[in-house]
């Protein structure tokens, strides 16, 4: 399904020149602390000096050099700005009724410090897209095409062992339901420490059984927990996940994910399972992390409001494809794709008393897609050609990409 990749100017191709110039986000969204972004890596650990008040020399000494050493072995990155460049990514899940095409030729580019939202209905392939990037598509699903360039390395060509080293260290992921994502059988502190241990920031077994390394693990874990805003980490790191509230669990997850200072954080509906007030706190935390460390974030959500609040750029997915992508304000204020419009119409807005209009019909069967546009059966601006050929993702008014035959050019 990645056939059209070559035929249209991908978002990367289009935006790369602008990026390479200043590595700044689009002019439409000003960044608050642009200066911290570029050298976040070399600043060693810590989000800002402000929220990392006490740093025992022992902790830092063990932590930072290891980090530097790890950086040193990486290939020199010529195009440092595009930390992640996905092109033509396609993933299928074989089922008893045929292959479900969960991801169909997705192209994404993520600059350092970027925050991208992927929105769409349940089952449209957004989560599968993230898992594909991690190469963690659950069996029997598999990636059938595409490349995933991470700072110049194609993740698809890495061995299982090399890929494992990337996971958690360079690209981390946070899941939807913290309740099920934390292992119920282990103490929270151990789960955070595991991240550090597998990537060599803490000694693994049996060295970790010594008192000294236990003390060090404890200090590092408490520090991380404090950074994500968990109160009294000194005692709570010994507790089990079920003793934490949902929001705190999500903070633990984020602490775990960020333990090794990854370049990219993939967040799969991180707030869906949380109360609204907690949602805001978690989002604030993530924003803060992004701003202070320059960790790029891909946020998958079905909630446009969250995307609007949190992200600079948004990609709308439908049936495994990106149907519209662009700066968040532009997409929200002036949606081009009929699906995006439908999505926006089905969200209640404060202060408006317009009746909501849901999108009629159902998500198409991803195992039996026709030749035409996959949204055509539900589309209100459907044209005859929609049933015959797939629209391609083309640039619209310079800043956006839209996949629709009926687009305004």
């Amino acid at each position, binding site marked *: 399904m990645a056939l059209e990749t070559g035929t249209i100017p991908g978002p990367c191709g289009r935006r790369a020149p602008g990026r390479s110039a200043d590595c700044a986000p689009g002019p439409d969204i000003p960044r608050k602390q642009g200066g911290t972004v570029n050298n976040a890596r070399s600043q060693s650990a810590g989000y800002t000096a402000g929220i990392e008040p006490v740093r025992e020399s022992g902790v830092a000494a063990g932590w930072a050099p290891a980090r530097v050493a790890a950086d040193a072995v990486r290939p020199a990155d010529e195009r440092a700005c595009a930390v992640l460049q996905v092109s033509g990514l396609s993933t299928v899940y074989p089922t008893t009724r045929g292959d479900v095409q969960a991801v169909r030729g997705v192209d994404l580019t993520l600059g350092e410090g970027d925050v991208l939202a992927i929105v769409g209905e349940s089952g449209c392939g957004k989560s599968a897209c993230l898992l594909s990037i991690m190469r963690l598509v659950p069996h029997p699903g598999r990636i059938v095409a595409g490349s995933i360039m991470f700072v110049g390395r194609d993740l698809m060509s890495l061995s299982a062992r090399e890929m494992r080293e990337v996971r958690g260290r360079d690209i981390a992921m946070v899941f939807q339901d913290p309740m099920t994502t934390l292992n119920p059988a282990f103490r929270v502190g151990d789960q955070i420490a595991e991240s550090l241990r597998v990537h060599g920031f803490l000694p693994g077994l049996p060295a970790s059984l010594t008192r000294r390394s236990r003390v060090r693990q404890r200090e590092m874990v408490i520090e991380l927990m404090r950074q994500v805003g968990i109160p009294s980490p000194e005692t709570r790191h010994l507790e089990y996940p079920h003793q934490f509230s949902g929001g705190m669990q999500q903070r633990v997850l984020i602490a775990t994910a960020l333990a090794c200072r990854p370049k990219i954080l993939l967040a799969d509906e991180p707030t869906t*399972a949380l109360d609204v007030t907690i949602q805001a706190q978690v989002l604030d935390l993530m924003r803060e992390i992004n701003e202070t460390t320059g960790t790029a974030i891909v946020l998958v959500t079905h909630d446009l409001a969250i995307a609007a609040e949190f992200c600079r750029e948004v990609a709308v997915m439908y049936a495994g494809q990106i149907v519209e992508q662009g700066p968040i304000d532009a997409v929200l204020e002036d949606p081009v794709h009929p699906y995006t419009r439908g999505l926006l119409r089905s969200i209640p807005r404060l202060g408006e008393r317009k009746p909501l209009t849901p999108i009629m019909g159902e998500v198409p069967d991803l*195992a039996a897609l026709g030749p035409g546009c996959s949204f055509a059966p539900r589309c209100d601006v459907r044209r005859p050609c929609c049933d015959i050929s797939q629209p391609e993702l083309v640039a619209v008014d310079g800043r956006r990409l839209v996949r629709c035959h009926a687009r305004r050019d």
Partner: protein
Amino acid sequence: MRALRDSPICLEGIEAIDEGRRAAPGREVRRPYDFQEAYEVRAARTRGSWGTGPLGLAVRNFLSFARQMAGNPAAVIGGVVILLYVAVAIFAPWVAPCAPDQVALSERLAPPSWIGEFPLGTDQLGRDILSRIIYGARVSILVGVLTIAISVTVGVGLGVVAGYFRGSFDRIVSRFTDLLLAFPYLIFVIGAMAVLGPGFWNLIWALSFKGWVEFYRLARAEVMSEKTREYVEAARALGRSHAAIICSEILPNVVHSILVLGTLRMGNMIVLESSLSFLGLGIPPRIPAWGSMVNDGRRYMLTAWWVATLPGLALVGLVLAINLVGEALRDVLDPRLKEG
């Protein structure tokens, strides 16, 4: 005993359901990666034009159910084997070459021979083993079905009431089941058979008498967790009676785990009959049952292996098939557990 009581794990369990699984259906948390599942749910919703009447719904559901079962090769194999056994059982008089109780002492312990009169040989009374295996399907299937039916009826009946109303009824019945569980099973059955005397029905009762306990526990635990769910509260708020809620809201949601446990237990019951034969408490010798046939042949293992082994293989085949179907049922009826 607490762990037993609180987790609805099948006793001596073939299958286990931990709390996570128990809680999950209520929370309706969809795991976005489970594409097969998303697909199935969607497919089940959109497919079919059978109308919305109850019959249409049932037929449509059954079709979808059958289609899902058909998609599971293990289930298909298991189902075909079971059908084969059932067909053989039904048509035994036409399939079997001899009468199963036709004693021919002069032909005893004839070895299997494909060209001879007795393809699978004869037993210690010269009865044709093939015919006995064929007729034995009737008895063994019946033992399994009846014991499970009784166990389910009693166990689920008490379990639903106890789990729903709790209170002193629950306490009394649960204490009683603790007591039954603490009693070693075989000792119990030996005693029960001695008290009841021999006979097919007494065997069924003796086997069922403790068999219901695990259905009771499973039903009780499931009902207790179902009861806290929103839809039950909603039904209460609508002023529906307890009986109506139990029958129309709760039972349908606990029935699938009961069904799964029932299929998986059925094999055990068929095997257990052989243990009783070993202890000299089996069913009448004229009635061919695989368990007692294996036991009869035990004395001839050194000289005539076929007497014990062939009925045993028939038994393994059926138990295997029942279990395959049972696991497929579990997978299909409980979409959370779908494999892959």
